[in-house]
């Protein structure tokens, strides 16, 4: 029983994990906006953005991969121990359910962060000019 408790332990570590994906989104946002500003203001003549686009697509792929990893880890925590027969998650108001909740929140935040990252990169891809 004590092992099981340990397995579904909640704490600061789990809480921090759910913020990882939004942090990646935030860093991706800062990198994209910062790089675009510096590129357009200092590094390019005539508004050409090809190099910038390739670099930021690479950054985006890495960010999405990291967010996907967060989501997979969250999914494992969420579904650990399996679901009940009706697809409902068993347990309420105990350690296990709290841990599962954090896993669930991690998955949802990963989805939101992934959408956010795509929305941030879209202008870079669609506009394709510094003008």
């Amino acid at each position: 029983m004590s092992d099981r408790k340990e397995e579904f332990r909640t704490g600061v570590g789990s809480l921090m994990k759910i913020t990882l994906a939004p942090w990646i989104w935030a860093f991706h946002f800062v990198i994209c906006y910062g790089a675009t500003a510096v590129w357009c203001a200092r590094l390019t003549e005539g508004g050409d953005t090809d190099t910038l686009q390739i670099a930021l697509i690479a950054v985006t792929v890495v960010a999405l991969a990291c967010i996907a990893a967060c989501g997979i880890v969250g999914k494992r925590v969420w579904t650990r121990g399996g679901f009940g027969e009706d697809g409902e998650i068993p347990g309420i108001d105990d350690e296990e359910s709290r841990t599962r909740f954090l896993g669930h929140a991690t998955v949802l935040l990963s989805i939101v962060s992934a959408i956010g990252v795509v929305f941030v990169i879209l202008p870079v891809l669609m506009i394709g000019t510094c003008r």
Partner: protein
Amino acid sequence: MRVRSRLPFALLPGLPGCTGRQSVLDTAGTDAHTLLTMFWVMLAGLVVIWVAVNGMMLVFRHLSPRRHDEALARKMIVGGGIMLPTVVISALLAWGLSVMPDQRAPGDGLRVEVIGEQWWWRVHYWPEGAEAPVVSANEGRLPGGLRTEFDLHSDKVIHSFWVPALGGKMDMFPGRRTMMSLHPDEAGVFRGQCAEFCGASHALMAFETVTMPPEDFAAWLEHEAGPAVPPEGEVAERGAVVFAEQGCGACHAVRGTAAQGQVGPDLTHVGSRHSLGAGILEPTVENFAAWIDHTGDLKPEVEMPAYDDLPGDDLTALATFLMGLK
């Protein structure tokens, strides 16, 4: 019942707002056509979503208020509440972003520099290869069928340059340049308006935009670049004297005369403009006189002082002189 029968009439005054020379729904330029298409598509989508959401509410709350299958409910929440908005917003974002570069596409040669002042517009025309601009004010002239670049900035506060019939708006910042371009495809006179609150007379900071065939525009620009025409007739000549005596030239320039002030709008060809006082009055002798006589009443907090101590004859003469500056 009486209220219902009157409702259509109460809405009538709003209808003229849909057409006319300052309407996004009555377009005369490529960029405005695009924005209008987006508006209609989004409005149609909005109506569909509104009907669907309210329809479902009606069905599930009133027509069929039994307990529904939970799996179906979950599918509807995930599909209609998460998937659908994500897809729709992504598609709109991608479409909107794909249109944005067109609104700032390079021009076909002419560049118009517009500087926002409180509460009027300095307008400098830079034809291709020009070393000095053709200076004008409070009116924009554009060649039809060609794309014209706008180089926008501001003197003291943030303004926004907007000709709804021709395209989107763009903010004008002190110490920073913003750029947009317009491609009118119809000859006409369209009203522009400052679209960013900029002080007491923000609402009175407007301008007329005249779109004309390229050859007419070229002729107009050549004339606009020239000096003012000399006053014709006794009254106008007297007006020129009043203009000089009152020191109008300290603030206003009339090229070809001693008046070289740069504080206020250039008046070299003020009589040929479609409006007076930055889009607020019809250009007539009476209105010129009224404007000079009580500027602050017509445009609150305007920097130009009211010359209300001028004798009536002098005022009329001055107005006649200005009206003659074609």
